[in-house]
């Protein structure tokens, strides 16, 4: 309300006194905004981000993008099919191993099934550590151990998927309707029966949906894992880039983009039907 508004004084009808609207105390909010702004600007400065430099380089970048996407070397397409298929196979196998190992571990890590905090607490801590390591770092470590090839990529994807799916699954085990478990317990069912008839039926649709989600993430990850030598289309991409064949780089980007997009759309439409 503006300061110009006035109302009639209660004690003396002839005198007008201004309405004072108490101002909300925004100090804390403003301090937070100030802090975040400082953090963002400081980060940009620390990383050497400068908009004038980007504008100066735009022309060079535009030329390069033109070489990639305006005159792509379409004759390269047949030679991409095998690496692309390998990429999808890597994602399938990686998702399979990851999901297969994630289910039992998630059951143990859920607090409401075993009810032994001394098992589930440390296990969760280990699972958290699994999830902190990015897939690319895992892949480069596995390439160093097992050598260049799709096998290392599958290993990296399995470990990565395991971390992802196990967390999502134990969270949904903890969110189940506990009444079914109690009903079975009152009938004297043992832990295995409870797992089979109360927990698994409730979480399986969600687990399948998480697995599909993991598959989508893995297809995207598998497409770039080859950059560190872990097989798939990324390896072809890396070679094309190393030889500065930007026309081929463009083809690889365009075609793998549409393949990944298609898989994504199919998988997410299945997921919508599941849950």
């Amino acid at each position, binding site marked *: 309300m503006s300061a110009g508004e006035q109302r009639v004084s209660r004690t003396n009808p002839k005198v007008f006194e201004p309405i004072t609207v108490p101002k909300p105390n925004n100090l804390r909010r403003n301090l937070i905004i100030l802090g975040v702004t400082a953090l963002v600007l400081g980060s940009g400065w620390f*990383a050497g981000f400068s908009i004038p430099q*980007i504008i100066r380089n735009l022309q060079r*970048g535009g030329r390069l993008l033109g070489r990639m996407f305006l005159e792509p070397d379409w004759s390269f397409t047949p030679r991409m099919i095998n690496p692309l298929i*390998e990429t999808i196979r890597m994602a399938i196998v990686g998702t399979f191993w990851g999901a297969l190992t994630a289910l039992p571990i998630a059951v143990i890590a859920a607090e409401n099934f075993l009810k032994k905090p001394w098992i589930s607490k440390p296990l969760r801590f280990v699972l958290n550590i699994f999830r902190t390591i990015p897939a690319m770092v895992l892949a480069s470590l596995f390439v160093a151990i097992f050598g260049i090839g799709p096998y290392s990529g599958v290993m990296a994807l399995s470990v990565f998927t395991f971390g992802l799916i196990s967390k999502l699954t134990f969270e949904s085990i903890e969110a189940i309707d506990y009444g079914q478990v109690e009903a079975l317990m009152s009938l004297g069912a043992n832990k295995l029966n409870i797992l089979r008839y109360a927990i698994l039926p409730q979480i399986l649709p969600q687990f399948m949906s998480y697995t599909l989600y993991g598959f989508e993430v893995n297809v995207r990850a598998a497409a770039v894992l080859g950059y560190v030598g872990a097989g798939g289309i990324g390896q072809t991409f890396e070679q094309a880039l190393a030889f500065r064949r930007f026309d081929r780089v463009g083809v690889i980007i365009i075609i793998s983009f549409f393949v990944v*997009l298609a898989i994504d759309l199919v998988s997410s439409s299945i997921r919508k039907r599941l849950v």
Partner: protein
Amino acid sequence: METIVVTKPVDHWKTLYRILNYGGILVLLIWGFLGIEYKGIMQTAAGTLQSMGRGFIQPDMAYLNTWTIDGLPYAILETIAIAIAGTFASALLSIPFALLAAQNIVGPRVSKIGKFLVTMIRTFPELILALIFISVVGPGAPAGILALGIHSIGMLGKLFSEAIESMDMGVKEALESCGAGPFEILFRAILPQVSPELISYTLYRFEINMRAAATLGLVGAGGIGAPLIFAIRTRVWPRAMMIVIVLIITVTIIDSISSRIRKKLV
């Protein structure tokens, strides 16, 4: 004791449906497994694993204590800076995309186009974006910031648009009936309502971007990835393991701070 027998009605169509589903998954799996060559696994794997383990037990502490531009503290700070700046940039850029994809703002037809656009951005790998931006602005952290800033629109735009779609439209209608312009509606009706969710999603994406920033260095877009891949390729395990340990600790700390703030917000 009597046994209770419960018989389920047999539905042949359902059985067929199931066979087709599980059979399809099985065929896909077999197809996948047959394609991966298991040859070429290095004979030295056990030895490498051993020296890796030795590096993990005795990491390169001198590297952690190097406070110059070549040291680990600088690299990890740069990684965090890339993640912060990239996430913030993408949060700002995501708002117009989210409005374009929200059904209750632009109507069903435009919203479909907006949603597809956001999905397309999400599908484009950040590593390839980073490579493109490296050729634009040269190798270094700015390329990483740009790559994260663009790629994160794919996820944030989708989540933001869902937040906008589930908001209370009464406020917007009230403002419209008073003759408010589009920007007044955006700043007085839409953003104040969805801002807790927006901040929460942005923080969640920041957690993801922290991991992404750590890998961007593999292609030369700044951060911890470059020294890491160099240490792995030259097999300097004490240094590589030091980097991995510091990365795990940093990401864990950032995750716990961010998820604590998120719990307070929503």
